[in-house]
């Protein structure tokens, strides 16, 4: 058992008062979760603290909050580790960002997240009538591939952390775009091209993402939304030759070339390269977004440096050992007829097994 201090952001919409901090003490083993801490406060001291929670196991997606400023699920953040990162010894817990607050730690997911999910036409539009008394026959890898996006629990943690969303609240956002990939990548869906066109041409669509990595870093289910967005872009440009108005295409190309070359994403080079194509000056990118691009560097670099987010993890195989492999993966992926994007459900591809040992 250890003592921890929680500083919880309180807001009572009925009081007419602004939000304030509530201070509480809890005692729990350090490996228990921040949610367990909040529940202990509710059980023992003040049950009026509002927080959505149900599964306690990072499954239901209810308990997204910001802990010491970082978006996360309360139920899979260890309280001991949160305390180590806390600035003045008190773990701060605030509602998620980029969404209106309803009460205490409860945000209005409907007004932001679910609206955006509905924006991407979130149901299968089958290419053909389903076969009678049989399943659609589709490659096993394709199913595994979209299963990564399917693993999204719609907790909103990535939405809360997304830098583009902060600048452009109309940005469709990481989770909804990951949801879009779930259909685009699904061979049973017949509307791939329309979907991609729609998402590429929407100024708040797939090219509104600034590669800041925040969503990849915070996602509790390894959905790697940015990765899904990159896949959407690759399909839009590479497979369908869809050119949008805001130079997303050039940026995309630079991005892929860099990874192929260096096996790592060099944000510092990426920016000049994609800007170098020239067409960025006009078009949809607002000055704010450019600023944001530049501001996003520290986050991306921090993530990379801490080893928490590796480009490998974000983009390719979580345990990819070296650049040769990166190149090999690229050529392998590109040479396949049915192109398959590697993801966390697909491991141990030729040689992967030894690499892990």
């Amino acid at each position: 058992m250890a003592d921890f201090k929680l500083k919880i952001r309180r807001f009572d919409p009925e009081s007419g008062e602004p939000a304030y901090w509530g201070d509480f003490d809890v005692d729990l083993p350090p490996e228990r979760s921040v949610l367990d801490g909040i529940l202990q406060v509710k059980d023992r001291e003040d049950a009026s603290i509002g927080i959505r929670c149900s599964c306690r196991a990072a499954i239901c997606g209810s308990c997204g909050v910001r802990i010491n400023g970082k978006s996360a699920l309360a139920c899979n953040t260890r309280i001991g580790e949160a305390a180590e990162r806390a600035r003045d010894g008190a773990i701060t817990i605030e509602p998620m960002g980029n969404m209106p607050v309803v009460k205490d730690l409860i945000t209005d997911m409907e007004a932001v997240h679910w609206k955006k999910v509905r924006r991407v036409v979130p149901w299968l539009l089958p290419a053909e009538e389903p076969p009678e008394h049989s399943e659609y026959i589709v490659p096993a890898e394709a199913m595994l591939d979209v299963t990564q996006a399917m693993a999204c629990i719609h907790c909103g943690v990535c939405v809360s952390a997304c830098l583009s969303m902060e600048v452009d609240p109309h940005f469709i956002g990481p989770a909804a775009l990951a949801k879009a990939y779930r259909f685009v990548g699904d061979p049973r869906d017949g509307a791939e091209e329309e979907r991609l066109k729609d998402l590429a041409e929407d100024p708040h669509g797939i090219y509104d993402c600034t590669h800041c990595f925040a969503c990849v870093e915070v996602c509790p289910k390894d959905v790697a939304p940015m990765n899904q967005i990159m896949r959407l872009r690759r399909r839009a440009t590479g497979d369908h030759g869809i050119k949008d108005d805001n130079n997303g295409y050039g940026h995309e190309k630079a991005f892929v070339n860099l990874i192929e070359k260096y096996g790592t994403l060099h944000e510092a080079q990426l920016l000049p390269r994609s800007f170098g194509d020239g067409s960025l000056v006009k078009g949809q990118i607002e000055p704010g977004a450019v600023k944001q691009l530049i501001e996003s560097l520290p986050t991306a670099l921090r993530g990379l440096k801490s080893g928490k987010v590796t480009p490998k993890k974000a983009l390719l195989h979580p345990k990819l050992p070296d650049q040769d492999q990166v190149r090999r993966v690229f050529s392998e992926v590109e040479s396949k007829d049915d192109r398959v994007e590697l993801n966390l459900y697909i491991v141990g591809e030729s040689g992967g097994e030894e690499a892990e040992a």
Partner: protein
Amino acid sequence: MPQHDVLVIGAGLAGQRAALAAAEGGASVGIISKVHPVRSHSNAAQGGINAALNPEDTWESHAFDTIKGSDYLGDQDAIEIMCREAPEELLELEHWGVTFHRNEEGRLGTRAFGGASAARTYYVADITGQAILHVLYEQLMRHEEVYRYEEWFTTALVQDEEGRIAGAVTRNMRDGSMELFSARAVILATGGNGQIYDPTTNALICTGDGIAMAYRIGAPLMDMEMIQYHPTTLAGLGLLITEGARGEGAHLYNAQGERFMEKYAPNKMELASRDVVSRAEQTEINEGRGFPDGTVALDITVVPRKRIHEALREIVNVGRDFAGVDITQEPIHIKPGNHYTMGGVRTDVNGQTPIPGLYAAGECACVSVHGGNRLGANSLLDTLVFGRRSGAHAAQAIKGLPVPEPARASVGAEQEVIDAIVSRDRTGRRVSEIKAELGQVMDRYVAVFRDEQGLNTALETVRRLQEEAQTVAVDDKGSVFNQDVLGALELQFMLDNAEAIVIGAIERKESRGAQYRTDFPDRNDDEWLKHINISANGEGPEVSYSEVTLTQWEPEERKY
């Protein structure tokens, strides 16, 4: 007053499937859920869903496994329906877009599960329930005409003067307003009641609300004593390690390194029925062959690592995040823990309860397809088949019925209950204290092994807690998202469930399925091959019996 032909309460798999079927049947539909639908507990189902879809497999084999698993307490007509309809149900999900695992030919692939004589469990990595729930929600969003009431909490069912169901009283959690819903048919799909136990694999929302609401208006509850303890839960927190782990080949060991299932189920070993494996583990633990933390070990390292990542990723995460164990490297300590409610509101094969117009489906219902013990991966199937059948039946049955007249007074009565709790000053115990005591008592006396003395202690405690629950006060006095006052209502629902469970367990003087009485250690088909029904008759619970339907399978001794 919101008015719908069919009102579905609960938006897990059963509720969403019912709503879709009712809408397809032409009814106007409303669906209510106290959490956003994708937060429903169905998302926790990792393992998979059963169907005899392979050409080599047969529905009869699936049915027999289910019946044997149920320890012959399941109704065979209902089980036949479920197993016959399973393949088409599964294909429908696939056609809607569930990303089921494929084999090399690109067809649906299976995994093995406990108590089954063929590998007939279909799955999506280890997020099967979540994947199906999210795909159903996709379909629900597509059906714009289905009205969704997300984060609305139903507090009571309402009848008309003749006793026919007429609607429900529901609180909009967002602003605290109480609404009377009018409906020609109501389908309860509110899930199980695991929260009355501590620990449990069930989420915090699994408080048996619908079971209690139906009971309060006179619907009989059936086989409530049949509470499943799952063999592999994490000590302390109660989180589940899916049966998929054993399906993929994981072994169980006691502290002496013995693979003890050899003694209890030499043929099926770790893949015997859940009641059998849980009892075996508990016996090892009780007889001193467990680890000091009251557990035995589950060794998943025997499963190839590639396969673990592909098929059991979620438990890699659970092991890492919640137990600090890398399951690909070392065994993880587990024990039996509360998991599933086999009993529930009694229904026929179309989901109809004895109350006209009231249906129940999913974990809150007792059709009964699970009898004394549910097989892994049969519950998702139950929710879908009987959810669909309820929705389809209700959509037809309401045709021509007049718009009902639910008594307006019911809203006032419910409002008063809430106002009384909110305005009360604290004199008694906190909701959390009562709930904690309930959980401990149930886990101690109404668990894997039971006896009369313990059960009587449990009943006395539950009755005392029911009294205490009448005087709870809450901290939250507001209207917006007052989760505190809803917690007080859930506590009362839970206590009603607990009372029925304990009464059923005292009543059944034999050992069958999940009910193991150390004072009556044998199954007794002569006297107890029957369902126990518990109804509220105004003064208190009343016990009666109903026949178990046998079709082509005579009860025999159960060996695994």
